[in-house]
């Protein structure tokens, strides 16, 4: 099994941390994972992507080529990566930030107003945790308990709000799956 996840957006959206937590959750689950990120020299606002590969064997090539699951949190990221999605892959996007003109090869398209939901929670920065919940639900490769454990170990500030955001994302993902 080799499952590739690509999360792309802008600096400051928590894109990197979301990838780190997925990778850590995989390690907690006894799987292997490789996570990397790519960004320019800017601290905020620049293009950012976080890549995670989850594997039950050794991870050879450590970069994502054809993601099974793609998350886009900016229009720019959507345009840049939609065509890399694997046939039958999953697309998750923030519906307030991305207008998906074409679905690419996606079998499932899942809009989620993550940033708006996070703002309603009172912590805009927890949008990445909502996305993380949706990824956990829609990919089905990790148990929610393992991801929660990874959040507990990796997130220090506002842990309770972040966990709440994660669970909201999880439920939202389940509802989207049902539709």
């Amino acid at each position, binding site marked *: 099994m080799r499952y590739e996840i690509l999360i792309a957006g802008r600096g400051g959206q928590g894109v990197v941390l979301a990838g780190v937590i997925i*990778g850590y959750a995989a390690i907690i689950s006894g799987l292997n994972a490789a*996570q990397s990120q790519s960004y320019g020299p800017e601290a905020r606002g620049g293009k950012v992507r976080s890549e995670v590969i989850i594997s039950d064997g050794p991870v050879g090539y450590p970069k994502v080529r054809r993601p099974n699951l793609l998350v886009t949190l900016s229009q720019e990221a959507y345009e840049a990566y939609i065509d890399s999605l694997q046939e039958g892959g999953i697309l998750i996007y923030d519906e307030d930030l991305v207008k998906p003109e074409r679905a690419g090869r996606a079998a499932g398209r899942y809009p989620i107003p993550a940033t708006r939901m996070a703002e309603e929670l009172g912590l805009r920065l927890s949008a990445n945790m909502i996305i993380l919940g949706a990824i956990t639900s829609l990919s089905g490769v990790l148990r929610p308990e393992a991801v929660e454990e990874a959040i507990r170990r990796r997130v220090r500030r506002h842990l309770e709000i972040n966990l709440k955001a994660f669970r909201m994302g999880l439920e939202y993902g389940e509802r989207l799956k049902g539709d």
Partner: protein
Amino acid sequence: MSRRLDVLTGVHFVQGDIACAEGAIAAGCRFFAGYPITPSSEIAQHMAVRLPQVGGIYLQMEDEIASIAAVIGASWAGLKAMTATSGPGFSLMQENIGYAYMTETPCVIVDVMRGGPSTGQPTKPGQQDVMQAKWGSHGDYEVIALSPASVQEMFDLTIEAFNLSETYRCPVILLADEVIGHLREKLIIPEAEEIEVVERRRPEDLEGYKPFQPGEDLVPPMARLGEGFRLYITGLTHDEAGRPRASSPEAQGRLVRRLCDKIRLNRHRIVKFEEHYLEDAEIVVIAYGLPYRSALPAVEEARRRGIRAGIYRPITLWPQAEERLREIGERAHRVIVLEMNYGQMLREYQRWIDPDRIVFSPSFGEAIPTPEGVLGLIKRCMR
């Protein structure tokens, strides 16, 4: 589980840079002086947090010249010492790296390579310093440089680097790249007792000690400053007592030969490599560091398709297993060399392998080789 603060036994999910710092501490490193630079900054950052926890010293220096100078001083004061940098900082360090070779000062220099020349591409990977690692400082000397290809190896090979450095009394260079430095993967830190740690050989008694008088392995035992030994340490050519011999051709010949020979004659003990599917390989891929991670899946896929492909990966970039590479070159129809530069180690391989059989595939910046790309190269060589 071990409760030791210096060896964090257990399973971790960390960046290569962090694994490197933890490897250093597990190997006994207690001094770090550095000037942060992408993509190596996490090493300095982590050392700043971790060294005080284990009774070590972290110094933030004003630049890389001062960093390597402080590391050399700390090593003579008896500590295992390290610095970490990237291309531009590695360039600045070169003169003092030569001083460390000349004064036979054990230390570890980590270069997490990015794109160059000059400032180049700070956040993108490269393997553009592999020749600088060998020839960066002036004069004749032989170096030891290691090339990690995973987060686990950032830990393991940093320990190896310290052990080699202590064994041969010379700087050892860890040549990583941005992707491996920033990649997060599973890191397993074993129990402290399972980690082999080498300490420099020390003189037995004060009487008659000469700091540059070698043992049978051509390596002199090393005293610590302040222990009562008379130490004369200079970058000038010196005799076995350390006294300058700036005009004597005999002294120059004796010292330079020994500085080189202690590595050359121990090469079989130092060299590390791994190889797969070479028994009947018609096409051999040579790749080190990150490109090895692209090449191995490609070679495995080629095998599944009935192509007799194999792979050779140098782990020590300096020195390398010349004899083995000559053998490989004689048997293979084609040798594909992958590097994240425009042809550096290639020149070494051209000395050992018929250049007409070599296919060179450079890559630049973020456009690292992919398994599909390497498989394509292998297939083209079959035609």
